[in-house]
């Protein structure tokens, strides 16, 4: 029994079957990669996991509880965090505040009327946020307005925001897309470090096979909304169905 159990999930958009019949089981403290050509339904699947979309059929169980019908913030509070394809950060706020907010969410839950306390007095939150920024090497940019960061920094910031929540499951949607090689390697190193701690399950969507094979324990290949195959990275590498799926994409 994995920490995340996706059973028979299907989702249609009008005439388009975005997800067919997806079954997925992610074991605790592993890194599970989902790969597949564009339009395979990877992002749709992720959206179903965090409550952005509600699947038409099937069930999604996390940690023994169904996530379906729950609001995004409830799902997050269950322990699922997500890094988006285009970084979703608080652009108007400073880098430091961006990290403080998830720390508050972790400590105080989805809502707390702490309108009289001063942020400056929240020493535990500040310490946590500082540690987190330090971990992603952004401490010196703590006071920069987030929207003025470079794209790579924005991704790192978002990663830091997600990690600061200490989620049980971290969903990563192409965390290195558009990154320079060096940045990509940094990200891989960061994720590897986190993974090494063994406190976190990861589910990653990625096109960059270098990233996938560096991190993943298991890989699911998705094509046209259905999982073709699920296996270890070694076995996936030479799998004919995978080649077919990607070759099919190449023809398009």
């Amino acid at each position: 029994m994995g920490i995340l159990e996706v059973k028979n999930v299907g989702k249609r958009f009008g005439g388009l079957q975005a997800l067919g019949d997806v079954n997925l089981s992610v074991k605790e403290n592993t890194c599970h990669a989902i790969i597949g050509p564009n339009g395979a339904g990877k992002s749709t699947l992720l959206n179903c996991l965090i409550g952005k979309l509600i699947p038409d059929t099937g069930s999604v169980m996390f940690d023994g509880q169904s996530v379906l019908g729950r609001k995004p913030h409830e799902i997050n509070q269950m322990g699922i965090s997500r890094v988006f394809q285009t970084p979703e950060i608080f652009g108007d706020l400073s880098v430091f505040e961006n990290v403080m907010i998830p720390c508050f969410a972790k400590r105080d839950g989805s809502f707390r009327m702490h309108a009289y306390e001063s942020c400056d007095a929240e020493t535990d939150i500040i310490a946590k946020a500082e540690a987190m920024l330090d971990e992603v090497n952004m401490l010196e940019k703590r006071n920069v307005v987030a929207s003025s960061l470079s794209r790579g920094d924005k991704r790192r910031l978002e990663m830091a925001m997600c990690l600061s929540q200490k989620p049980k499951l971290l969903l990563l949607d192409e965390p290195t897309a558009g990154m320079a090689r060096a940045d990509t390697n940094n990200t891989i190193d960061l994720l590897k470090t986190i993974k090494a701690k063994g406190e976190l399950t990861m589910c990653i969507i990625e096109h960059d096979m270098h990233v996938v094979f560096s991190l993943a324990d298991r890989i699911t290949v998705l094509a046209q909304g259905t999982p073709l195959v699920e296996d270890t990275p070694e076995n996936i590498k030479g799998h004919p169905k995978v080649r077919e799926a990607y070759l099919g994409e190449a023809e398009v």
Partner: protein
Amino acid sequence: MTDQTTDTRMDATRPRASAAHKSSGLLGLTGKDLGLFIIVALLTILAPFILNPFPEGSALAQFNGGYPDLMQRFVIFGIFAIGFNILFGLTGYLSFGHAAFLGVGSYAAIWMMKLLTLNVIPAIIMSIVFAGIFALIVGYISLRRSGIYFSILTLAFAQMSYALAYSVLTPITGGETGLQLKATDTPLLSNLGPTEIGRANFFGVDMRASYEMAIGDWLFTFNAGYYIAAVFMLLSFYLAIRLFRSPFGMMLRAVKSNQQRMNYTGLNSRPYTLAAFVISGMYAGLAGGLMVAMDTQVGPERMFWTASGEVVLMTILGGAGTLIGPVLGAGMIKYMENIVSKINDGILHQWFAFMPDGIEDFLVFVIHPFIGKGWHLTLGLLFMLVVIFLPGGLVEGGQRIASVFRRKETKTSTVEKSAAEQQQHSE
């Protein structure tokens, strides 16, 4: 309607994590905030002097604003705008119906004074309570939508309140003629004579009571009502600073910045926005209650959309999202309304009497359209000039003046500052 580009540069909402390790100062405020609060407190306390810079009887005495009514209006509308800014400045939700809460607060207050006691405190408490409840209902429904859809929902509620108060609710609201205290009103906890009309008081201190001080040609008026309203304003302002600097305030700015990220960070934005809405509704209610406390009368126009629009304009004019901006905006608009509208041609002729007749008449002719009945024209021009030349509102004007001095002093700039400037240039 979120503003993607504003406010990050504002000092009031600046990230201040660098101050994190400092121990909290006086009143739980630190650094700039404490300075700002002290300045505002001083300005408020000394307002009778500051607003009456010209000697009585001089030609410029026309510009004196230091009489009780206007001073009261400054602080009351200041409260209204501060409250509005908590919603609009922080969350970006533009309510176009906030005057309804002011009106509800006013009606609640006057009924308290008619029925229970002439002491202003229970009336003000009730006005906050009623406005809060009404804001809860309106906010709960309106916040199901965002952006302009939210604005129109709030507008619709306010316009309905206005229309009903003006017409079918006349038995409760007094309709067109509104409600005043009458000789026939006998509040439970008062012993008025048979034909005596009650007066609002604060434990026996009449709101109208004034102390006048003459220094040379100057006359300064210290009005009891003003100081009571001023205490409420300072309290409101203080609470607003606390809120701005609190984790809650940070969450509200997060709502404005990226509501989606907020939800995926495990935060439920609805109760945050609703709480902000109710708080700002209660501020409006407090303002409404104080209006009644200072001047015991309510009319339904107080809830008309133009009144809601006015507080929007006050906030933007002063600088949305800044702490002091809305108060400045409120002061500016009320000053124009009460001072410029009272200048007439006769006064102009007095001013320019020392000039040759032809020039005098010419000057009067040129200025005439902008004063008296033309005060709206001046106001409209002011709006346009401010928004064109000072994109951050009056506060930015202040900042620019301050920066001119600062540049002379030192040329070092912090990361924070350069980031802010960068932000500014990107617009």
